[in-house]
């Protein structure tokens, strides 16, 4: 099992879900794939199908229309699965805090593993967040001597 966990962290395939973002965070995610940043060197790939994904990257304020859909996408993800919230909107609804259409932040809808703040966060910040996620999973395992709860 240890070997498999190691392998899992070396090949995280990310899926990108925009839940009513202003599109700026999405552009920053795409920046991570460009020559300057290139997350493929950590073994990460952007996939087009949720069933291939290991990491769900969510951007944008969660609006009423999106809540059931986020849940459905999350449930379709094969385990083990990780969720990353990107941008102030996904973290705390940002400027849409008082909006009639954004009843709750993302982590009230699905469990979130890493929060990456910024409006929008820089691609370096997104990469740092992803690497911290990997580090933390490694450390957790070393401390408790068991697998992380694979949700």
């Amino acid at each position, binding site marked *: 099992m240890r*070997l*498999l966990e190691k*392998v*899992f962290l*070396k*090949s995280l395939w990310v899926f990108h879900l925009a839940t009513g973002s202003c599109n700026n965070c999405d552009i920053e995610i795409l920046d991570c794939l460009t*020559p300057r940043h*290139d997350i*493929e*060197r950590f*073994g990460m790939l952007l*996939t*087009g*199908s949720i*069933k*291939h994904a*290991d990491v769900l990257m969510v951007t944008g304020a969660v609006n009423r229309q999106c809540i059931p859909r986020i849940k459905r996408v999350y449930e*379709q993800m*094969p*385990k*083990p699965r990780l969720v990353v919230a990107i941008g102030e909107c996904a973290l705390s609804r940002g400027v849409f805090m008082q909006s009639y259409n954004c009843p709750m932040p993302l982590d009230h809808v699905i469990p979130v593993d890493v929060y990456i703040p910024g409006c929008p966060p820089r691609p370096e910040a997104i990469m740092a967040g992803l690497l911290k996620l990997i580090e933390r999973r490694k450390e957790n395992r070393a401390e408790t001597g068991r697998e992380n709860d694979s949700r």
Partner: protein
Amino acid sequence: MTYLLYVFLLGFLLTAVIGFLASWFDRKLTARLQYRIGPPLLQPLYDFLKLLEKETLIPKASSQFTFVSAPLVGLISAITVSAILWASNMDPQKTFIGDLIVVIYLFLVPSISIVLGGFASGNPLASLGASRELKLLLSYELPFILAILVAVIKSDFSLRLGEILLAQAKNGMVAVSWSGGLAMLIAVICMQGKLALVPFDTPEAETEIAHGVMIEYSGALLAAYHLMKNMMLFALPFFIIIVYLGGLKVKGLPLLYGMLEYVGLVAFLTLIRNTNPRFRTEQVLKFFWGPVTMLAAVAVGLALGDY
């Protein structure tokens, strides 16, 4: 025993290892061409192991038996075809009559398994991808067979891979003649289609139909498809080396030469993949049935006229 040895050691293990390395080479070269750094050496292996470990979801709307068995059928035929190729490469005297035809059929099965899996998964995008894969199959098969016909003509109408190899050992490679060179070029283009790499990747087309046929596959079944594709990335160029370049010698300096030929073929595929946009479905059909088939017919004519 020897058969088991061929199927398991050469057909499965060695082919899978070379396939993983080739897949890494393809991704690394792609990355370097785009001024990126690219994945580490063992990345395809990591991906494969990770997919094995992940949960496998089988959609409710799918026809479950076909959905599960399609990738396995494709994988088994990829193993079989590589075993036959290795066997005839190692021991050209001992091959059976008509193994060329068997190989051509077995090369079809992985594509058909993708079509079956796509249709069985009960997803509209996957069905769309599967129907595109069928059209792709119809388009490249004719010129591919015509191109192989050239090698058959060159070796006195023999349908045995072994005799094609022996004839090349006697008269020199097929590829150095006019007709042979042309036929090899056509076979390489058809190989690009068979592997569904970029100008012909209509069935997968991440940007329009989100991986198409693969969309519902996850976990171990997706791993089987990945393994199958990596093995085909070795088996198809290997077939071309056998038919046109006199086979892979396994001793001394010629081995190095054969490896260079293989790496060159994969690099050529990657170059085409990175410098071309995707064709539309009907453009693929027009391209293969128009100029490519025409050229293949010319190559067959040249071969009959002994050029």
